[in-house]
Each structure stands twice: as C-alpha cells, then as structure tokens.
C-alpha cells in the first residue's frame, strides 16, 4: 500500500507538460504514505521515448502501454488499459489531470474499478495515513473536504493548483503490450483546431481574459498582443457575455458554465466580476483587473486593480511587459 499511480498524458508520442504536475503530486503524497509513485503513459508506436524523464519528478516506475490502437485517444479503448494497470499494483490512488481528456477518462476508470472519484481537486493532504482531498462545490462558493472509503481512489487534479516539483527517483521504464479488446463502438472522425491557438485556457499558467468592456471581436488584437508578450504559457479567456455575443468561442469561456482555471496570473479586462465568472477563476494565484468602473465587483477579488479604460491601459501594459520579458 501507499503507492500512487499518475496518468501521464502524451500527445503525438511526447509527454505533455500537464503530466509533470500530476507526477510531482503523486511522488510527494506517496512519500508521506510510505509508498512510491508510478506513472502510466498510453500511446501508439514509439510512445514513451521520454518516459524515464518522469523519474526527475519522482516516478519510481513508468509504465508505457504501447499499441497502435492507443495512438488516438478513444475512451472505450483507453479506460480498460488504465484499469488493468491500476489493478496490477497496490495503489492507494490513481491521479489524472483535470483536463478535458482527464475528466473524460477518470470516471470510466473509476467505474471499471468500482471505486469513487473526486474530480477537480485543489488540495490533497495525507492525514493519519490516508488521503483527504479538497475540492470546490457550489460554483466555488464552498470547498468540501472529501474522505474516501475503499481503494484505490481516483482523483482528477486542477491544473496549476499544485505546482511542479523535482524529486529524483529511478524512473525505471516498464514497456507493456496491453491486451486491447476489439474495435470500439466510437470513432474519431476529425479534429478541428481552434483559432485561439493551442494552449488551452485551463492549462495555461497565465490567462488574459476579456469581457464585454472590450466592445467587440475586432478589439481582441489588443488582448492577443498582451498574451503574446507574456510568452508561450499564456492563453486567452473570456466572459460569458463575450461568448454569447459570438466574439469568442465557448472553449475560451471562464466561469460556472465554462472552464475553471487556477493560473499563476489572471488578467480580467473589462469584466465586471459576476459571481458565475468568479466561480471559474477565484483560485488563481494573482488576479489583475482593469475596469473603468471603480465599483465593479471584480476589484473585490483582484490583488491589483487599475481603474481605467482598457483601450488606453492595454497598449501600455503590453509594451511594459514585453520590455520586461525581453530584457529579463
């Protein structure tokens, strides 16, 4: 007992950045439980060349399940493989990232293992030798401390809420050929990349969100410029008002009926700060608000606020930040 298994997501054969946080959490909690962390990578031929690299983040062992049928994510094919590996060890917990894929896969694995799942957790403690998770409920208006009965438990972790930590472990790679059960009853037909760029708002460590105060889709160039100045870990977000107006795709919406984000830095530009928007971003580490209304509720949660016109503030902000980022 005491071991924890971390699902390490890959894309096109390469381990994704989000995996490092999951493996780091698995390693530190397993250490407290007196066990060790294992990671699991699923993918097509050639997957896992970089698998031993997870040792640097605390993975004692890295399972690589490699098969042509795992090249693309098909939940009905992936879930039984993860469940099989989970059963093969003595795991206290199986951890997933709370990405679209993680949130799709975790409940299926939990159901196959006949065990419960705590989704989108923001904290994971070890108390009296057992795991206790904390996760938001009621749109972030309360946090629930969750206790588990029965092992292994399954959890998905809110990205950026825990952080990445290095802790060297052996990272021994174990290649396995999973028993893959016949063709699934679902097929991926097509993938349409969104125009917003590849970094998803829920994964980004910096988010630049615009609201109705931006007055129209054509003004998003100002927000894009700020995002670009902030570097490749930054992504765009939006309020629902903006999505409803058709200025931005729903995939960028932050809030109760959109994505929940916990970045290091969140910019709310021309966003009033309605309770449903706050539900999606109040666990960000640092919040910056720019709003021309000094009474806007967003200033109630912001760490730093500028009262002013976004159209005047943004160009200056972009300029100062690119100066800083390019000069170090």
């Amino acid at each position, binding site marked *: 007992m005491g071991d924890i298994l971390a699902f390490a997501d890959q894309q096109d054969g390469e381990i994704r950045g989000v995996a490092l946080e999951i493996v780091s959490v698995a390693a530190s909690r397993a250490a407290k439980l007196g066990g060790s962390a294992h990671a699991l990578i699923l993918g097509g031929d050639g997957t896992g060349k970089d698998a031993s690299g997870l040792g640097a983040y605390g993975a004692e062992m890295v399972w690589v399940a490699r098969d042509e049928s795992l090249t693309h994510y098909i939940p009905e094919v992936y879930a039984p493989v993860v469940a099989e590996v989970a059963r093969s060890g003595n795991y206290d917990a199986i951890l997933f990232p709370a990405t679209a894929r993680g949130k799709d896969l975790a*409940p299926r694995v939990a159901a196959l293992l006949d065990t419960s799942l705590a989704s989108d957790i923001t904290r994971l403690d070890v108390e009296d030798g057992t795991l206790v998770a904390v996760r938001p*409920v009621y749109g972030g208006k309360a946090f629930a401390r969750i*206790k588990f009965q029965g092992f292994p438990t399954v959890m998905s972790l809110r990205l950026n809420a825990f952080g990445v930590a290095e802790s060297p472990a052996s990272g021994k790679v174990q290649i396995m050929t999973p028993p893959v059960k016949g063709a699934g009853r679902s097929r991926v037909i097509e993938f349409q990349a*969104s125009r917003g760029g590849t970094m998803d708002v829920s994964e980004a460590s910096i988010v630049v969100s615009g609201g109705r105060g931006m007055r129209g889709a054509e003004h998003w160039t100002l927000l894009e410029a700020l995002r670009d100045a902030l570097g490749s870990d930054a992504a765009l977000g939006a309020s629902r008002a903006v999505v409803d107006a058709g200025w931005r795709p729903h995939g960028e919406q932050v809030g109760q009926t959109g994505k929940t984000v916990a970045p290091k830095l969140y910019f709310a530009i021309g966003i009033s700060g309605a309770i449903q928007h706050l539900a999606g971003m109040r666990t960000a580490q640092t919040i*910056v608000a720019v709003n021309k209304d000094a009474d806007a509720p967003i200033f109630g949660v912001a760490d*730093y606020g500028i009262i002013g016109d976004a159209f005047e503030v943004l160009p200056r902000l972009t300029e100062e*930040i690119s100066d800083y980022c390019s000069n170090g």
Partner: protein
Amino acid sequence: MDIIVCVKRVPDTETRVRITESGNSIESDGVKYIMSPYDEFALEAALRTKEESGKGEVRVLTLGDESSKETLRGALAVGADAAILLQGTVTVDGLATAKVLAAELEKHDPPLVLFGVRSGDVDQQQVGPMVATLLGRPCASNVSDFNLDNDTIVCRREVEGGVEVVELDLPAVVTITKGEFEPRYASLKGIMAAKKKPLEVKDAELVESKLTIDRLEYPPERAQGRIVGEGADAVPELVRALREEANAL
C-alpha cells in the same frame, strides 16, 4: 427516437451558500432550487431532436428527494413527455448515483441517454461517463452539438485546443455542454399540459456512498487587494508589483 435525459435539482447559481452548523451540508431554507443549467441544455437538445424527427418520446429521470417533483414538472412544462423520480438521498459520490440511474435506464434501454456535462452543485463531471461504462455503452462527453442517424450519433466534443468530431454507435450516452442548445421557457399552455403528463415516483434502490463530505469550508479569503492607480499611468507600478511582490512574471 426515444431519449431519456438525466436531470438534477440544484441550488440556483446566484444562491448565497450558508454552511450548516454540522458543517457538512448547506442550509436549504430560503434557497431557490433550479434544474442544473447543463441539464437544461441536455433537455433542450432532446426536445429539438424529437421535434426535428417528429417521433419518439423524451423522458426525464432524476434521483432526488420529494421536492425534485417540481423540477420534473418544469421539464414536462417545456415539453418532456414523461418523468421518473427515484426518491432517495443524493450524495457527492457520483458512482453511487450512477449505479442507481444505470439500473433504472437498463429497464427502459433507450437508444440515447443525455446528461449535463456537470452538475451545478457538486460539479463532479462524472455521472454520465460512469453510467455509460456501467451500461457498456459508448459515450461522448462535453458535446456542444450532435447529429443523429438511425444507428449512429455524430458529436462535436469540446476538447483542449479545439473540437473533436466523434461518431458513436447507438445505443449511446452523451453529456452536453453549453453550445447550440439555448433552453426554452415554459408557456402557460405547457405548464397546464404538464399537469396531465405522467410523473412516476418510486423509491430508489440506493447503494452505499464511498465518498463523503467530511466538512465544508468557505473559500479562503483572498488577501485584500489594492488599486494601483488610474489609467495607463498606473501600468509601470502594476508591472513592478507583479514582478517584485507577486513574483508572477
């Protein structure tokens, strides 16, 4: 095509949450309850599917207490044909809920079952895919739009960095996100008609919850922020603070 939509009664998203003295639930007096917002999208998707094809029944299914009848009547008022209430206590354990729902769904075996992608209260984002797994059906989650055929459903799923188009064989399970399905309001005529529609109530065969809320806490207060200034002139101070105080750049 017959469709069953699983819906849940939850506190209105505007509700102020007050934690009870025992510390593991919220006060329900004075709280307005609604159908979970994503379940409204799922119901709307089902109603439109029925209208477009001109055939089939839309039924709504819930696990909840007696008061959930009001939510089910609301669903009948906007156009669902029948409703089933499995009366019992709902917990934060989605697998316990999924088992109860799956057992009921098995009896009806509809070609399509719709869920909200996430519930407005515990927001576990799990019951739909769990039910699908228990029933051995294919499932697409986080779907913003779909097209039904005789034996397949083609879904647009919202995933990181874009939209994935997937095709599932029927019978299938789909969880709905906000997309094209802006919900309708009930008309007076609909509300009257709902009174005559079937609303079946039976005791839920509950299973043990293995996940429990030990304690609820209010969100940690954010440290008092500050206004760094007005207009573009405040930018240098903001950038300095982000760099030196917040260590965020």
